[in-house]
């Protein structure tokens, strides 16, 4: 029996058209004041961060191809969704990434060499979120972090760290996940808990159309934004390649969350221009025509067109390009200089408190290894 045709279309919030024209629609008009409140420096920063992200992406993919990284996770095409939402967060907010949000971490102050250490096989994460802009560790088991974010937001409520009426100090949480991860049970359980406890939280789905090789249509028959409504919270679909929509809708959602008005969900419709990871081969499951369609909707090109129309100088774009190249080159140098971990790392932090098995096995390995070093033991 053929599936019945149903109309599940959802309005999409877009401020900037693919041609780079600021043209608010009925859905996006209410968000315009949030953009008008941004000064040139803030607007230029969006461009800079998107450009750095793309340049870094290229450099890191090359590092992987040269055998210097075990894996690289490209974000080419998703820069607007990531940069806009990251800038929407305030310093006191906590951000729980999946594993593709490299520029989000950088915007929060994380040195990206930490990410390369992870992908080079030198660490399992390792950074302290408290010292890196409240940007939490990458989570490789899909959607696990949605629950951690929800619990963290519950803690903010219990602490009285939110909903006091002061947006300068009231805190909120944003959690990133993808279209594939929405099918995980944890993603639904997180929505249940968030709705039940009315957590100060934004669920930010980057729908990049593909869960490795499986299209989003296999994950959901209807727009993912509807997952919000189904669990009792607002759900908004945005043009994820429009950095202004990404910023404005996320900003609005976070401000409502910190104000005590509960959680919400954003579906950013975007596209993964590159492979899922460097282990993937997208030519096996998608067409050139599809990639071309999305290339015409490139987030950086349209934003550059708009900035140029506003009078940004050629010198500005040249400076950003030079800076992006230098960031990428510097990162490459430092990645190659990363020290290999020592074997103490195997045992050192498995437990917070002393553990007899760790002590015993570390001592055994030391003795065993030193047996190969000219009888040094």
């Amino acid at each position, binding site marked *: 029996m053929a599936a019945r045709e149903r109309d599940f279309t959802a309005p999409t919030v877009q401020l900037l058209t693919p041609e780079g024209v600021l043209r608010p629609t009925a859905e996006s008009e209410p968000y315009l004041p949030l953009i008008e409140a941004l000064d040139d420096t803030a607007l230029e920063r969006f461009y800079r961060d998107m450009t750095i992200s793309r340049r870094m992406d290229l450099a890191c993919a090359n590092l992987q191809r040269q055998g210097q990284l075990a894996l690289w996770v490209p974000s080419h095409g998703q820069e607007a969704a990531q940069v806009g939402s990251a800038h929407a967060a305030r310093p006191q907010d906590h951000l729980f990434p999946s594993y593709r949000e490299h520029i989000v971490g950088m915007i929060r102050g994380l040195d990206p060499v930490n990410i390369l250490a992870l992908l080079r096989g030198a*660490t*399992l*994460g*390792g*950074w*302290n*979120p*408290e010292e890196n802009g409240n940007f*939490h*560790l990458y*989570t490789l*088991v899909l959607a*696990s972090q*949605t*629950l*951690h*974010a*929800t*619990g*963290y*937001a*519950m*803690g*903010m409520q*219990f*602490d009285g760290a939110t909903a006091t009426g002061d947006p300068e100090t009231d805190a909120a949480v944003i959690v990133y996940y993808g279209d594939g991860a929405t099918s995980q*049970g*944890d993603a639904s*359980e*997180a929505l*249940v*808990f968030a709705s*039940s406890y009315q957590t100060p939280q934004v669920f930010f789905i980057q729908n990049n159309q593909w869960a490795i090789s499986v299209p989003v249509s296999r994950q959901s028959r209807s727009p993912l934004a509807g997952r919000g409504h189904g669990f009792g919270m607002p759900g908004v679909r945005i043009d994820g390649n429009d950095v202004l929509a990404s910023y404005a809708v996320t900003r609005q959602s976070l401000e409502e969350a910190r104000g005590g008005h509960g959680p919400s969900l954003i579906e950013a419709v975007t596209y993964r221009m590159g492979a899922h990871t460097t282990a993937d081969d997208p030519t096996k499951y998608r067409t050139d025509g599809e990639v071309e369609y999305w290339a015409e909707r490139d987030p950086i090109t349209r934003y550059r067109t708009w900035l140029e129309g506003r009078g940004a100088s050629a010198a500005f774009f040249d400076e950003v390009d030079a800076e992006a190249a230098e960031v990428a080159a510097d990162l490459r140098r430092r990645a190659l200089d990363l020290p290999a971990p020592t074997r103490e790392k195997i045992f*050192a*932090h*498995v*437990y*917070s*408190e002393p*553990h*007899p*098995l760790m002590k015993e096995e570390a001592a055994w390995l030391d003795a065993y290894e030193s047996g190969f070093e000219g009888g040094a033991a």
Partner: protein
Amino acid sequence: MSARIDEERSATDAAATATAADSAPETVADASLAPERRGVQTLSMAKAINAGLRDALRADEKVLLMGEDIGPLGGVFRVTEGLSAEFGDKRVLDTPLAESGIVGTAIGLAMRGYRPVIEIQFDGFIFPAFDQITTQLARLTLRHDGSLSMPVVIRVPYGGHIGSIEHHQESPEAYFAHTPGLRVVSPSSPHDAYWMIQEAIASNDPVLFFEPKSRYWPKGPVDLDHSGMPLHASRVIRQGTDVTVVGHGAMVSTLLQAADIAAGEGTSIEVVDLRSLSPIDYGPLLASVQRTGRLVVAQEAYGFVSIGSEIAATVAERAFYSLEAPVLRVSSFDTPFPPAALETEYLPSPDRVLEAVDRALKY
């Protein structure tokens, strides 16, 4: 542990097992805060854990209880009875009905500085949370290079002997003992339960706290002033000279019964209560085996790839020259828990333990 408790313990245990109609007056659990009423009290394990949880909630405002039906109802075993009334629904959380959600949000709360204590309603219902426990909770300290602790306690009523339906009588502790980053303990008496739950909450590592549900109701002495030993210590609870038997949780009372029967037949059994399943404190066990030369390991769990297998292998390695017989294991069978009408044949009994003891003595 005071000598007085040691002496009282065996008798209380046997009496409680023999009859459910224990007429000893049960003191109320919240006596723990009134100094004039501390000392040694007679409590069931359920009340002892309740008292331990209450003391922990009072001592540290970051301690939270989370679980299904643990609020006004007090949990299906009433272990949290009265706590939501005293501490409110921000400290004692009746959560949505989703085990992965409970553990996952507890992880987030622990990242925020809380010390969540989770109740999983029954042993067989922990598996929806298995992913969060093993891939997240157990590894987050390591992944944070030690800058983050995960002080989360997961209480699990476990084991058989209660005649219940499928998924309500299981012993899944080995799955968690097999997972690096977790600590796993199981008390066998009200006294240990009162102290071990508080020590587990005070630990900065995640602790799986397995509560032998068939032992919730028998009463025993609880010294409210002295723990007696650290969380991860094992101990000899009955001295003997011929054979050592070791177990944990509800199995300990089975071992004590077996020792009583054997004593009447002229065999002297030494009983070791493991208490901690990860890490395992081998000191008292190895010392015992060096004295007796024989060891029987008993457990309610499946025998294949179990805590008992691990102990048998380790004792064989470390006490090889003391052993007069191979280490023998007594377990349930390697099948799913059968319909409850068959549980007495499925679960190790004192007779099954003694059958192994006899075999050990024949070598």
